[in-house]
């Protein structure tokens, strides 16, 4: 290539940067600024700088409760998704090459289906006249209510976020090599010890990545809590939506958004810490 195009090459990123500036940086900065205004009744916004929104937010225990519920639920869902995904990922990793591709596609394909459709699928299964309660009643149990409460939201989100966990775990399993397990067994380690001392430490990076992904995706999930929670499970994301669309208190919605970003930041920090420590002990 001649000299001129080489020098002009960086200019080619300009359209992408322009899109980013207009649809990301500017709106986000604008959003952050808005949290320092006051929301007026009827959807108006005060013109002057104000800490009133933050003051109200921090003084109201209701929002602390929402924050704790969101984080707690995200932690629980992360744990459950890990428990449900690890066996699948392990199985897929061990499958014959010709089955493995098919199984990986089966694990990924839910990602390509709208969250609305998948959540609707859970309404069909968990709803009062749904698949599961009907079966349970047929077996003589009196099933508890499974939708429009936390139970439904947790079940739905675990399933909907599992593909991310499975993919992360599979990426982490790349370090695993069956001869390592054979070597450990030949040195006298029974199967559980092999798992605990060899398999688990080597797959830890994948586990951590999957947990980070599922955690942040849970915190930001909106469709599933809204539909399966039926408006009765109040979380950060649903509250942001309600404040923005129903109550029309945009400064409050903006402040809540920043708190959600804060949770993201904290999650990233914790992840960085743990994974660096894990990396050090692993490689």
């Amino acid at each position, binding site marked *: *290539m*001649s000299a001129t*195009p080489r020098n002009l*090459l*960086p*200019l*080619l*990123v300009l*359209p*992408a940067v322009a*899109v*980013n500036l*207009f*649809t*990301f940086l*500017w*709106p*986000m900065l*604008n*959003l952050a600024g*808005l949290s320092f205004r006051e929301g007026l009744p009827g959807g108006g916004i005060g013109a002057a700088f104000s800490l009133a929104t933050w003051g109200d937010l921090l003084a109201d225990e209701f929002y602390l409760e929402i924050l704790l519920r969101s984080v707690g639920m995200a932690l629980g869902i992360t744990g459950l998704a890990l428990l*449900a995904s690890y*066996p*699948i990922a392990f199985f897929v990793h061990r499958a014959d090459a010709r089955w493995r591709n098919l199984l*990986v596609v*089966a*694990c990924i394909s*839910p990602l*390509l*289906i*709208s*969250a*609305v459709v998948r959540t*609707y*699928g*859970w*309404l*069909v299964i968990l*709803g009062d*006249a749904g698949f599961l309660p009907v*079966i349970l009643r047929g077996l003589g149990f009196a099933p508890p209510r499974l939708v429009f409460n936390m139970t439904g939201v947790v079940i739905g989100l675990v*399933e909907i976020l599992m593909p991310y966990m499975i993919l992360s775990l599979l990426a982490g399993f*790349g370090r695993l090599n069956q001869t390592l397990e054979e070597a450990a*067994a030949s040195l006298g380690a029974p*199967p559980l010890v*092999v798992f605990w001392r060899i398999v688990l430490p080597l797959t830890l990076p994948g586990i951590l990545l999957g947990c980070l992904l599922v955690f*942040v995706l849970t915190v*930001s999930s909106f469709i599933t809590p*809204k*539909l399966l929670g039926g408006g009765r499970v109040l979380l950060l*994301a649903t509250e*942001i*939506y309600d404040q*923005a*669309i129903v109550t029309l208190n945009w400064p409050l919605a*903006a402040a809540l*958004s920043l708190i*959600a*970003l804060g949770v*993201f930041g904290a999650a990233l920090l914790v992840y960085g810490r743990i994974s660096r420590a894990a990396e050090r002990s692993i490689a």
Partner: protein
Amino acid sequence: MIRSGPGRLFFTVLVALLFLFLLGPVLLVFPLSFAADSVITWPPSGFSVKWYLALLGQPDLALALRNSLVLAAIVTGLALVVALPAAVAIGRGQFAGRDALMTLISMPLLLPTIVLGLALLILFVGQGLIGSWTGLVLAHLLVTVPYALRVLVTALGTLPASVEEAASSLGAPALSVFFRITLPLMAPGLIAAAAIVFLVSFDEVVITLFIVGPKLTTLPVALFHYVESRTDPLVAAVSVLMVLFSLGLVAVLERAVGLRRAVGGKGG
């Protein structure tokens, strides 16, 4: 190490149940869409295609579907036009800040869509973009350009630069090298990027919720509002069509480039 015996059987059964859990919601929608009942009932009292026929009497959903398809098509074209030059610059250029640039452009994927949607809503209200095609296209570019860029940079990375060097050593000027050599070789990556952008745009719902207006909505948003108010097998019929559409697109993608490569999963 699960070698044999009851441990292995238990593990296999466990994995089968977990797969059932993972795929159940999508699978159960199929029989339900053929239910003859007017509300969700298990087991369905009979089977019919009445809910598929009922779709024909839903002009709102039909319009939303049309909007979604048109929007996804526009967004696919624009996202590639924006991302391809950027991918070439990042994949072939030698300038400081390439990583930072990649991070900045990927950033929207790392943040909660609800926050992105709110931020766009607040900004777009002032610009008169709410409920407009321009607003929807911009909002979808926000979340599709990062995917397109990533796939294209990966595709470019797997092309040996020596092929391009060979072409220019044979006397081809830079633009000819790009259009005669690089672009044709990137075809699988372009197809993958287009398919992923199309799917992401077609399925996008949270950000879109904030941008749609009373006269302009998309299929996922219309479905969301429908499911919010009632659950009848009509949505199952729509869902089946959407699932089949998505799987069809995935099959095309798999044909063209291999799904695992397209989503950036580890091979082998």
